[in-house]
């Protein structure tokens, strides 16, 4: 009764609906992990010195490795075993890898979300106005966009970091403050400079997409109709152009969260993120001990990949479901 063609359609529909579900589950997990980091983490992620009695890092649970230590002028090979205390082991300076993994999600998500929001705030009005009014405003925007595009975004971000400095803003952690968790850092470091910088290198994509939408909408018949009975341009922009441009902007915003998470990781990896509680920074830490103690670099990398995948899956889902025709924009990393 059911032909092969129809059957494969059904299978495809399942596959297509499975991926967004996976993305959603992943993202929710990561968000929960970030929000309740103080409750989930097993140690203060900033506390150093979790070494074994020989002064060696712990490996993750179920692993062991051999290390050379100097005792009394002699170099001895010892086998380091894992401990239940540190399920993912500890890093070079003896910090708990699992706790740092949990806290790392905070920085990634904060930068991703706030960066996109800021970029939206700058880019969307600019693009809508340029596209709707056209003429010189539009020319100006397009030239500006050309200039922005000529900078590799990561390079520009690095240069901007040089200007803004790297001092993070410290806000009190509500969960610790409420006394729900003890022995955890009392403040959350928000890398404000990084947020501003990623927004400054991202806004132009929002401006371009918003402009394109406004450009086509300004000739839409319903906009002409609104003009024909004397609606002001401002009202048209708010009531017609903005709501009808939102779909591609939402899709782009989702994709850009992923891009920004990768950019932040790159900045942190290069040592320009302002906070050490970042997955990218952690990978940098792990690089020097990559051969002997690879988990230090591996674990935070998996964090980045999972969170970026989850956001990208949602972005693809939106794109497929809402079908706006936009290019993905420049991606960092």
């Amino acid at each position, binding site marked *: 009764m059911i032909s092969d063609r129809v059957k*494969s*359609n059904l*299978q*495809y529909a399942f*596959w297509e609906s499975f991926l967004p579900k996976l993305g959603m589950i992943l993202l929710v997990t990561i968000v929960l992990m970030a929000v309740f980091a103080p409750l989930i983490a097993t140690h203060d992620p900033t506390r150093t010195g979790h070494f074994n009695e020989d002064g060696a890092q712990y490996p993750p649970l179920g692993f062991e490795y051999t290390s050379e230590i100097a005792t009394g002028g002699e170099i001895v090979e010892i086998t380091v075993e894992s401990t239940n205390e540190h399920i993912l082991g500890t890093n070079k300076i003896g910090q708990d890898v699992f706790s740092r993994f949990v806290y790392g999600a905070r920085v990634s998500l904060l930068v991703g979300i706030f960066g996109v929001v800021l970029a939206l705030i700058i880019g969307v009005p600019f693009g809508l106005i340029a596209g709707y009014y056209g003429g010189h405003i539009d020319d100006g925007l397009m*030239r*500006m966009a*050309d*200039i922005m*595009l*000529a*900078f*590799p*975004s*990561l*390079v520009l971000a*690095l*240069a*901007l970091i*040089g*200007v803004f*400095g790297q001092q993070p803003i410290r806000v009190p952690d509500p969960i610790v403050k409420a006394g729900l968790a003890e022995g955890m850092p009392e403040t959350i470091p928000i890398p404000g400079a990084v947020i501003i910088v990623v927004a400054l290198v991202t806004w132009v994509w929002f401006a371009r997409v918003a402009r394109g939408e406004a450009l086509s909408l300004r000739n839409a018949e319903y906009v002409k109709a609104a003009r024909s009975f004397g609606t002001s341009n401002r009202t048209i922009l708010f009531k017609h152009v903005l709501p009808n441009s939102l779909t591609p902007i939402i899709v782009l915003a989702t994709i850009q969260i*992923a891009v920004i998470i*990768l950019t932040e*990781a*790159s900045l942190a*990896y*290069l*040592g*320009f993120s302002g906070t050490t509680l970042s997955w*990218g920074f952690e*990978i940098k830490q*792990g*690089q020097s001990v*990559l*051969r002997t103690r*690879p988990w230090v*670099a*591996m674990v935070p*990398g998996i964090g*980045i*990949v999972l969170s*970026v*995948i989850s956001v*990208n*899956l949602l972005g*693809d889902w939106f794109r497929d479901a809402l079908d706006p025709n936009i*290019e*993905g924009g*420049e*991606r*960092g*990393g």
Partner: protein
Amino acid sequence: MSMPKFLLRRTLQGIFVIWGVVTVLFVLRAVSPGDPATLMLGEGANQELIQQVRAEEGLNDPIFVQYADYITDLVTGDLGYSWRSNREVEAMVIERIPATLELSIAATIVAISIAVPMGVISATRREQLSDYGATLFSLLGISTPNFWLGLMLILVLGVWVGIFPTGRRAVGFGEALMTLVGTGSPGELLTWLEYIALPALTLGTYFTALITRLTRSGMIDELGKPYVKATQAKGLPLVLTRYKHVLRNTMIPIITVLGLQMGTLMGGAVITETVFNWPGLGQRFVDALGIRDWPLMQGIILFVAISFVVINIVVDALYTYLDPQVSVE
């Protein structure tokens, strides 16, 4: 409009863009913290000397005069001296270009040669295993930070499997080629290949994933267009419909996207070079940034921006050739 006029027009626009880039750099440098003279001489230099340098460098002039001097210098091709090493910036940039160029080109070749066939297979065998595989691969590809990917490749292929060297690049392509031509020995070229394999793979993965996705979605879009039905209606063999008509039309817009992605490629190169200790511009840039060596940073960014502009002019010119609907108007 004729092609020369089109190129003239685009060059004018390009010069404007470069001017914009240069101006942005000037502003960044002007507002960034730290006194240039101090940066030049190092902390703890004596105050008198600092004042002397300030005067020499025109740092006490009004900002507009400084800007005019700066533009004049650039127009005459004078990129200045590195604050730290006191070498000519021009030379410091040029000596690093080959390594970065090799890496970028190798990565692009890797990307295109894997991605296009993969995208085509994915689009034409939709809903089959190969499509799922390609989709999954490209999803991973665009979601993996390349410094981490580089480290993992070093760990797995370099350390655990041990088929690729993990050290600093041993030989340049130019030298390797000269050896091959001069002595007939391909040894150095093979060494070069060994060393560039992992960095190129690292830098290329993201693009492979991106182009795969673009090819797949572009081809699916294109396959739905009415002219495809018309080619079938006239009985054209499927191969021709697919490749002569559809793939060709799919690739046309992708070329433009790739031109615009040059920036990403350069950003990726910065990271990749750092990971692999690759003696290119990216690595030099990160070093310069660490010590706030503005003239050197400016020189590198300027070079990248100019290449971006030139490549995009070439892409646009190519586009008018590939897509007859876009005339040089």
